[in-house]
């Protein structure tokens, strides 16, 4: 009995329960105050709330030195994450932040660390190497605290920022001349009738490219005012199949339901 309780406890701490919901910043109790405001509406630029507790150094650290690092943290880096970004650009009205390289994206960010109480430096040993990135153009804030070095936390925060950008920033879609971008086709189930065989296997939530597809899907749903059935028609899927895709990922489900709520539609369940 004791063991199974211990297992439960370890499961909670070891299993990345938040694995597929990186933006659920509320899982860091102290940080929940910085999470992107839930009242954000698609198409609207996210307004940043003041972030008490954070300070940003006057100096923005150069990202280059980080990216060119060689070694132990490379796997945590998403440096070749969005290398195929260009393909989708013709479908997007506005600029797509996700197509930027890490360095390019970082240039648009202001970086802060935890506000430290007291003098810091040699006085302090708290391993709070938390990092907070504020994306200036949108005001979106992403942060990471759980890694051991600031470098790794910066990489994690940047990945989270990409997720948040995908979920929160809407690009206009021209429905008249719409053809689904490849990123979107790749996350659709194989039975989609518009999905060519050249799309390869279905990309799931664990693949970093999933978020590019999510962004395109949300853009489309937003153009359809949250209607899953309309979007499903265009994507060659049944409404049920598209709903299942949406429900398969927590962050996608939440974003879709937020969109639907703003249009007075019932949430998907």
């Amino acid at each position, binding site marked *: 009995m004791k063991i199974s309780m211990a297992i439960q406890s370890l499961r909670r*701490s070891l299993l990345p329960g938040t694995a597929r919901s990186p933006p659920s910043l509320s899982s860091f109790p102290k940080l929940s105050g910085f999470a992107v405001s839930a009242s954000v509406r698609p198409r609207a630029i996210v307004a940043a709330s003041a972030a008490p507790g954070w300070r940003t150094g006057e100096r923005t650290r150069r990202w280059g030195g980080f990216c060119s690092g060689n070694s132990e943290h490379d796997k945590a880096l998403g440096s070749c994450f969005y290398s195929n970004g260009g393909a989708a650009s013709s479908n997007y009205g506005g600029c797509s932040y996700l197509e930027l390289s890490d360095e390019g994206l970082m240039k648009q960010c202001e970086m802060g660390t935890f506000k430290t109480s007291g*003098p*810091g430096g040699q006085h302090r040993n708290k391993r709070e190497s938390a990092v907070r990135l504020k994306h200036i153009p949108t005001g979106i804030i992403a942060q990471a605290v759980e890694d051991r070095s600031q470098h790794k936390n910066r990489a994690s925060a940047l990945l989270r920022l990409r997720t948040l950008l995908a979920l929160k920033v809407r690009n206009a879609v021209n429905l008249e001349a719409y053809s689904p971008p490849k990123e979107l086709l790749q996350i659709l189930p194989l039975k989609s009738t518009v999905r060519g065989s050249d799309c390869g296997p279905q990309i799931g939530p664990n693949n970093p490219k999933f978020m590019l597809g999510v962004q395109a899907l949300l853009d489309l749903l937003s153009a359809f005012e949250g209607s899953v059935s309309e979007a499903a028609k265009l994507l060659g899927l049944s409404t049920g199949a598209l709903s299942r895709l949406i429900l398969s990922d927590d962050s996608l489900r939440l974003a879709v339901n937020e969109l639907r709520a703003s249009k007075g539609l019932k949430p998907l369940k």
Partner: protein
Amino acid sequence: MKPTVRPSFVRAWPCIASDFSTFFLRLPPPPLAHARNIAQIRHRRIHSSLSPPPPPPLLASSPPSVPPPLFLRPPKYTTTVADLLEWHSWAKSLAASVGSSFEDSDNGPDSRLLCRELNWLMEDVLDGFDPSLMHKAVARDDPDVIVSSRADVQELYRLWKQRIEERRPFQYIVGCEHWRDLILCVREGVLIPRPETEIIVDLVGDVISKDQGLREGLWADLGTGSGAIAIGIAKILGDYGSVIATDLSPVAIQVASFNVERYSLQEKIEVREGSWLDPLKGVEGKVAGLVSNPPYIPSDDIGGLQAEVGRHEPRLALDGGAEGMDDLLHLCNGAASMLKPGSFFAFETNGEKQCKFLVDYMQNQLPGSFCNVNTASDFAGTQRFVTGFRNG
């Protein structure tokens, strides 16, 4: 083929040497002379007007045996998931019992941070931290799965007790600190590198990206401790330049040498023992860049430090004399004679007050020596660094 243990490893972690030697091969017991420089250390701060209160009895000063960093030990132990979980849940409740009491008393870690450390400890202890293995066992409710581990469970109990009850720093428990993209080995007697100090390497990166001459030059990290800054700089210098890393503490010399070798930078970084600028004899006027994170805490503040710092880290690396400026001023006064025209320097300080004082001092008391003397902030927004260039 026999695996070998590098000599620097034996010097830096004497007692593992025997541990490893039984594991890998037989080595003669390493000769060690910790005591030899004690007198020198004690008399180093001749400029201090106030003699500091006697340091607290340091577990830190020279422990009889220093086990190797956990992540470098061979995974020679095996344990069941059940035993590990039992330890983990004990450790977690011990951490939880701390609540915010450390934070309230001396701004130490709260239980949330301690729990995070506990996960990092697991990372280092479990062989490669194969989460899938743990996950599978947990998911199957199969507590008898065997996992291999770098420490035996009894040691884990002992280590976590030290963490909570003695406030022994987490980095000394695991024997390393993650700093920039490096994993640096540390142990008692060596300052644990701080995240703030990472910026010094970035400052150097900015400078060498604009000046190839500096990139190709000789750099010096004075009071290198674990070797953090020297290694960080050596890596961004790439194929160019070289670094001299100095420290007064023989323990720091051992640990820095070990870290330098672990990153295969022996050709690039020369580790020299001695006080501040003394080991730079022979390169006067030739140094392209001088950096240091010297002790800068005012002596009176040492007693009130967070227990992890004040009780366990070397006072030699923290106590900067009455105003905390003894060593900084010593460096400023000596820097000009080492630096060549157009060369760069960066020093870490206690904050705005020391920064301003130093900028003023260099401009007014050392006129003509330096130019473009400025301060730079750390990521918490505190003015932390003084930088500038040698005139010429």
